[in-house]
């Protein structure tokens, strides 16, 4: 894999050239109007001014308001459609559609895509969405007060999940290819790093890696008997102020739970009249029902409620505990990494300021 050096002008030209083969997305304020992909807070860009905004030295500090999760896990996503005589349409997932490239991705967000891919390993929809997406990250020069990626196993210059990472270097930018696809995209652009830049680049990488390793609480959390805290009073204290909304889970890049529901398709209302396959050529050009999946949150009482009325996680305390234990204990038990990338969105937006960093500190303090 190569690392190249570009000045600002060259970088802008390279970004613009990607628009020819990809739909290029970057952080924005609203909801994308793009029919194929409407992601709150991310939109298609094409103009030079917009590219300027995603350069590593121009992009706002910290993470963007919303994560890139909906690119991989759309809200909602059609899984299957049915004809009026209950026949399912059986094409493969939405493999069709233009390849897309997302710019301005922070390393923590990119890492979340990789982490979510673990439970979604056999999910054709997630995989298809991932296969058609190229992630171009920007390294963080500065941390926001809510950032704590190192604590969770990431780093401000982390490369997990990215195809290309752009960082400021000297008077220009270093572009690091991290996958074959990234390597291809960089093509024969720019020059390799000269000796002085390479030394600076390598030194910075090493020092960041060392810092990240030191700060990482994953090993210490995994070393603790967290189940001994299951009955602890901390959950009661935390849940006392929690209002049990889903702001944390829905803004969280690593929360991946969903619900499935059937909806009638209204023939006369245009947009949702297509079959899940999107080819238009399948047996069910006239689906009458679509089965969608949409985000769900373990914070909601309904999440675990049985049809009988019994609810295994019937109280707020249960649910608050489950959210943190899932991120810091259950997920690591199963997949080896914390289900948290330290982006800090939940801390920033929680209406009652529940701070996962404090929860981690409390858990780490247990003997």
């Amino acid at each position, binding site marked *: 894999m190569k690392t190249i050096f570009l000045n600002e002008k060259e970088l802008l030209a390279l970004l613009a050239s990607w628009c020819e083969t990809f739909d290029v997305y970057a952080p924005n304020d609203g909801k994308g109007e793009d029919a194929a992909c409407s992601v709150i807070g991310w939109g298609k860009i094409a103009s030079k001014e917009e590219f300027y905004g995603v350069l590593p030295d121009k992009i706002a500090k910290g993470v963007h308001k919303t994560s890139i999760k909906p690119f991989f896990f759309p809200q909602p996503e059609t899984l299957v459609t049915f004809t009026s005589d209950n026949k399912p349409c059986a094409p493969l997932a939405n493999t069709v559609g233009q390849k897309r490239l997302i710019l301005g991705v922070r390393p923590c967000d990119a890492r979340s895509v990789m982490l979510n891919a673990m439970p979604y390993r056999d999910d054709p929809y997630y995989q298809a969405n991932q296969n058609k997406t190229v992630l171009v990250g920007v390294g963080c020069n500065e941390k926001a007060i809510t950032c704590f990626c190192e604590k969770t196993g990431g780093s401000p210059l982390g490369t997990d999940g990215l195809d290309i990472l752009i960082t400021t270097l000297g008077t220009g930018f270093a572009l690091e290819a991290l996958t074959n696809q990234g390597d291809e995209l960089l093509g024969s652009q720019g020059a390799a790093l000269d000796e002085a830049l390479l030394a600076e680049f390598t030194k910075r990488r090493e020092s960041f890696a060392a810092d990240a390793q030191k700060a990482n609480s994953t090993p210490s959390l995994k070393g603790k008997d967290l189940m001994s805290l299951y009955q602890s009073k901390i959950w009661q204290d935390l849940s006392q102020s929690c209002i049990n909304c889903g702001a944390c889970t829905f803004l969280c890049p690593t929360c991946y739970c969903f619900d499935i529901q059937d909806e009638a398709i209204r023939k*006369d209302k245009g947009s949702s009249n297509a079959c899940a396959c999107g080819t238009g050529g399948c047996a069910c050009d006239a689906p009458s029902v679509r089965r969608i999946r949409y985000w769900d949150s373990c914070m909601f009482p309904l999440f675990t409620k049985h049809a009988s009325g019994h609810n295994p996680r019937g109280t707020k305390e249960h649910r608050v505990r489950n959210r943190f234990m899932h991120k810091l204990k259950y997920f690591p038990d199963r997949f080896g990494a914390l289900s948290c990338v330290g982006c800090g969105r939940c801390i920033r937006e929680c209406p009652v300021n529940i701070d996962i960093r404090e929860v981690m500190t409390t858990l780490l303090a247990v003997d």
Partner: protein
Amino acid sequence: MTENSFEPKIIAFLCNWCSYAGADLAGVSRFQYPSNIRIVRVPCSGRISPPMLFSALKQGADGILVSGCHPGDCHYISGNLFARRRFALFKNLLEFAGIEPGRVNFTWVSASEGERFADVVSQVTEAVRQLGPFNRF
């Protein structure tokens, strides 16, 4: 589809005791009215809650008509009076959010007002026809 050939679908929620009987009388008396309405019979206009009206709109209705007994005539004494407060606020809220004023209509039709029923339906249908298909959601 031109404006004139558009035939709106209108869901009419009629109370069992007055308006439904009024509709019946309109039929028996052979007052003609457009066939655009689909009637849902409810025990009382007080039974109608906003979620029902949204369901109708979401599932493809172009207009809505809710009709109950005239104030003072409610079979359950005061159901329509509670409903009147609810509808006053609800209609305003819908319009505030940008739903056209003519989409959702409320009226009173008694069991003896077959003619009024036919008038209401004709005029509501015409108003909704003018508005065109409901495509807000």
